[in-house]
């Protein structure tokens, strides 16, 4: 992923040898994202520590769907593998539509199933104002879902660009989008263990 030192020509701006801008931009963004989730996680841990285990989840509130969410998570994890395959294949022959679209479908399936869980929980009477337990669940899982939606949008955009510019080398854009998606997938197990299992 290291670009070549551009030849110096005083008529065009010089580009330093190194990581392509799109990839570097996403890396710096993810650094901030990591701190964002770290803050949510620490807020959760601090509040959770004050509540006895018998009251978490509070009596009268529905239990979180631990198993069905674990099942949903599989789609998310597999989407990271299909995307990794797409990135690897792009370097060889650029024909990655199958793997990229499969990734987008798997990711969308995860988001849809999560949305269905939310509808069920709300019907059980668990709303954002029914206590800290529910508030943290919706905030943390919601923040992740928001990132997942953004990630899927980015992958769709990249797929469209690759289709339109068959000749152009878009590996920097693809890598940037993939890094973002790997972050979305990578942070999920941490959130799952914290929110669903604690």
């Amino acid at each position, binding site marked *: 992923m290291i670009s070549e030192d551009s030849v*110096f*020509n*005083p*008529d*065009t*701006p*010089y*580009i*330093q040898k*190194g*990581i*392509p*801008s799109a990839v*570097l*931009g996403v890396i*710096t*963004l993810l*650094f*901030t*994202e*990591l*701190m*964002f*989730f*770290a*803050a*949510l996680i620490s*807020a959760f841990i*601090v*509040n959770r520590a*004050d*509540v006895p285990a018998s009251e978490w989840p509070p009596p009268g509130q529905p239990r979180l769907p631990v198993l069905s969410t674990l099942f949903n998570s599989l789609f998310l994890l597999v989407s990271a593998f299909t995307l990794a395959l797409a990135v690897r294949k792009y370097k060889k022959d650029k024909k990655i539509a199958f793997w990229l679209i499969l990734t987008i479908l798997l990711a969308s399936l995860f988001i849809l199933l999560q949305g269905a869980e939310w509808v069920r929980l709300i019907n059980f009477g668990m709303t*954002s*104002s029914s*206590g*800290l337990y529910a*508030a*943290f669940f*919706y*905030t943390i899982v919601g*923040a992740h879902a928001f990132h997942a939606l953004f990630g899927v949008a980015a992958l769709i955009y990249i797929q469209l660009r690759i289709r339109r510019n068959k000749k152009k080398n878009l590996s920097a854009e693809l890598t940037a989008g993939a890094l973002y998606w790997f972050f979305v997938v990578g942070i999920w197990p941490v959130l799952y263990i914290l929110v669903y299992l604690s």
Partner: protein
Amino acid sequence: MNIAHHEMSFWRRYIFSTDHKVIGFQYLITGLIMAAIGGYLAYVFRYNLAFPAESIPLFGSLGPKEYNAFITSHGAIMIFWVAMPLLLAALGNLLIPTMIGTDDMAFPTLNMLSYWFFFLSAIVLLLSFFVPSGPFDGGWTLYPPLSADAYINTEPDIWKSFMTGGTLIILALALEFVSMLMGGINFLVTTINKRAKGMTLLKMPIVVWFINFAVIDFMFSVGPIIAGAFMLLLDRVAGTGFFDAYRGGDPVLFQHMFWFFGHPEVYVLLFPSLGVIAEVISTFSRKALFGYKFIIKASLIAIVLSVVVWAHHQFIAGIDPRMATFFSIGTILISIPFAGIMLSYIATLWGGNIQLKVPMMWALGFIAIFLVGGLTGLYLGSDTFDIYVHDTSFVVAHFHYTLFPITFFGFFAAFYYWFPKFTGRMYNTVLAKIHFWFTFIFFQGFAFPIFFLGLDGQHRRINDYSAFDSLMSSWHISFRQFATISAIILILSQFIFLFNLLKSLRSGKKSEENPWKANTLEWQTTSPPPHGNFVKYPQVYRDPYDYGNPDMKEDYLPQNKVI
């Protein structure tokens, strides 16, 4: 350099422009307009403090709720809508591409979006002056429970709670953070990838280093406050109760999330300002910056320390005293790298061939005032002293002695230094010097008496002290009036700047390419630089501070000059 750029409509060229110079000017103008609003608010509540219960000229009468709304808005505006756009966004946009010798940012469209997010955030904030509840009045730090508004919590009505000052300011802040994040990513990536040929990291001008340090500190600390603002917003509009102690939440948690960002934020503003001062001092001492590498290392240490000192704002919030000691030590330690940087600047002056030009006066004024702010910071960093003066005017005087020089002396040093470069015109130096002396003297006249009032127990955020006999002796009253009259003259003297700015833009003398005979790349192109900044992109051969080289005929040696 690029023919496609020539045929652009007015809108593409000046409004939705992706050119870093236009965006820099957009930030600059917006920041100055917001500064005028923040200054007007300061005038109103300072007048009220000196002459309570009197009708205020150009305003009317000010009630206690409005008083608190005005100090809250003044604080928030000056930090987030004046200092941030002027020091970080405007300077970063104007200076980074020109100083590293490239045409534009790495992501020009993102850069344009960054400005429009910022513009939107300013509008959302100003909107809060026109909603029924008025602007938020619980202090710029947005502490719950005041900011979590228990009345809205019990029955969340999304639309009603959106149209309150409290919700609008949180929303405005969130938008502003997103905007600065987009700008920051651009600055970092541009600096890493688009430097001119031959410009290694250690050949970059120090101000480029410093703006990027500000970005790194910002990006490290902004995540938690975005999370905190998000949770606070949900408390208000969705009734989540994160910070509502009655429902099991923790109001002090917000303070941690706020100050984890809030303290580094001071350095986010200080770094660009320090960078400007370094450039100016080196140029007008005709001498290399003393300890270039040391300054970079000291700054890195300061960045690391900056994220482990935040709880010094919370010594009376009921935190564990052992934790308070830890944060006290951290706070006092962090003054060491900054003291080192200050000493490097003074050492740069030492033995230099000093030219007391206008930007140099602002730079020296910065050092003089900032040292007082820094020294009183040492006192406040110690929890034993801080508990005694917490929330008094002593703290107000301290942060004005730091943030005023950072924001205004740093900005004006930059303004008077780079104005000829980016406008192609020279300003009136006599007016500029009068502007300096009025600002320097009347700032001290305003902020210095407040130290004594604070030490004597004058609590802040109170609009009228007549109920407190111990604060109503004749010296208390005359100190408050002296501070207010100085503040009014300080504000009025900014009209000298405004007049000079407008007049120079219209009819100022044409400026040369390199009026200060400086070495960095932005001076080696036309004034103002063309679209794309350089006709021929430069190649760099040496570090930026090669002044007074005995082998040369002239006392300066531009970074790109071939010998």
